[in-house]
């Protein structure tokens, strides 16, 4: 289900009011900026450190997007394989669930040790977090074809392949996209968590490390600036996936959602 802001006025008003209240509180109570910086200072800091922060954002975004694409392809492919036969589902699904329920912070250090390339290790961590919603939703979708339509395909002498590609896959498509929208947020979370664990310094580091670094150095405005960029990224990913979904499902309009 897509969340649509039909009337953008109420959330905008609330947002502005909150920012004003925040800035006022910081000034009135003279809260030191290393405890809670005001939004104006955060904006200034973001501007000052823009090259550094946007460079880091790009790295985090790259990890997130590669992991998300892999989650979409891998989750859907796994769902197809498992839907081919009950025994495949019974043998593979438990391991997909194990990967899903094991906290990523606990296995990230191992993955970082085992995988040579830091980029590949981070992508793998983000993928493990992100693929399950696509897998679970697509599997549900593949099984949701109208039983009467399945009978109709049988009566018409359809092959397994025809039923899968002309009935089950189109039926599963809205489910797949619902899963993908969840995976988008999870891929970002996975990338950030993995970066926290990896914690490598140097020039090619993502936003999560900038947050850690700013925390250690008590550069709280910079921490907030990085945090702001992360939230914005998450929102943009969700919005982009929602657009992609409604574009891809335009023929389903009026039958789903």
């Amino acid at each position, binding site marked *: 289900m897509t969340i649509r802001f039909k009337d953008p006025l109420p959330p905008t008003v609330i947002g502005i009011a909150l920012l004003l209240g925040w800035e006022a509180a910081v000034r009135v109570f003279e809260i030191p900026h290393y405890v809670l910086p005001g939004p104006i200072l955060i904006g200034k800091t973001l501007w000052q450190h823009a090259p550094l922060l946007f460079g880091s954002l790009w790295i985090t975004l790259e990890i997130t997007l590669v992991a998300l694409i892999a989650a979409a392809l891998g989750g859907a492919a796994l769902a197809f394989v498992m839907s081919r036969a009950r025994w495949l589902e019974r043998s593979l699904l438990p391991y997909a669930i194990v990967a899903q329920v094991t906290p990523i912070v606990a296995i990230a250090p191992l993955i970082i040790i085992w995988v040579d390339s830091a980029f590949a290790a981070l992508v793998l961590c983000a993928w493990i977090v992100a693929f399950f919603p696509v897998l679970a939703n697509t599997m549900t979708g593949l099984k949701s074809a109208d039983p009467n339509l399945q009978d109709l395909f049988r009566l018409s002498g359809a092959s397994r392949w025809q039923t899968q590609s*002309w009935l089950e896959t189109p039926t599963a498509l809205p489910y797949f996209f619902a899963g993908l929208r969840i995976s988008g947020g999870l891929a970002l979370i996975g990338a950030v968590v993995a970066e926290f664990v990896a914690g490598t310094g140097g020039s090619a580091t993502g936003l999560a490390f900038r947050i850690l670094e700013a925390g250690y150095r008590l550069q709280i405005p910079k921490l907030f600036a990085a945090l702001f960029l992360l939230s914005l990224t998450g929102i943009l990913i969700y919005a982009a996936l929602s657009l992609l979904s409604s574009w891809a499902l335009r023929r389903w309009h009026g039958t789903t959602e």
Partner: protein
Amino acid sequence: MTPPSKSLLSINAISRTFPNGTQALDNVSLDIPHGRITSLLGPSGCGKSTLLRIISGLDEASAGHIEWQEDAPNTGEIGFVFQDATLLPWANVWDNIYLPFRIKGTSHEVAKTAVEDAVSLVALNSFEQHRPHQLSGGMRMRVSIARALATSPSLLLMDEPFGALDEMTRFRLNDDLLRIKETINCTIVFVTHSVFEAVYLSDKIAVISPRPGRLIAEKSIELTSRDTAIRSTAEFAEACGKTSLLLAEGDTA
């Protein structure tokens, strides 16, 4: 007025017990006359849909068998209309009717005439590009009938096709079905729980008892005409009354 007709198939002592122990059908034998409309009439859950599925090959009898008078139809030669329109929601009217051809591997060009004839038969000519959600319930059902008829099946099985529609639409589709039946020569087996619908449409009615379904009676229907006017005649009322009595007998038996 109905001349004796040879049968297309015979249902021979068919019983069906589901794996969970429910007995749906008990020793049903019935001839389905060639080129006629036969209705299976009975209360909900009496196994008449199960009988239809067994005839189509979607389900198998626990005992008894279907005997075809000529060669048994090949895959795809039986048309089936479900209670719901059962259309692909993402495909337009044309593509939905084309579906059985597509499965058989018939190209668009080759199937074109058959699909368009079927569209004309149900009078949906200007709606070929519409998708199901843009159509009314009655129109969706007409698409479903067109899809079943497009491949010119020798046998058309209809499982309470108009049960979910309002009465006005239902009357109109009953007339449409009779008109279509005049145009194409096929055998129809029609499942319904409506006495009026069964009497109006059928040459023959098989009355089936509540679960487990047993054949209570076979009744030939001979009306002087089949049009809207006959619905309000004493002749029609009498035929309905007699059929209702048969149905009631099964309930107390």
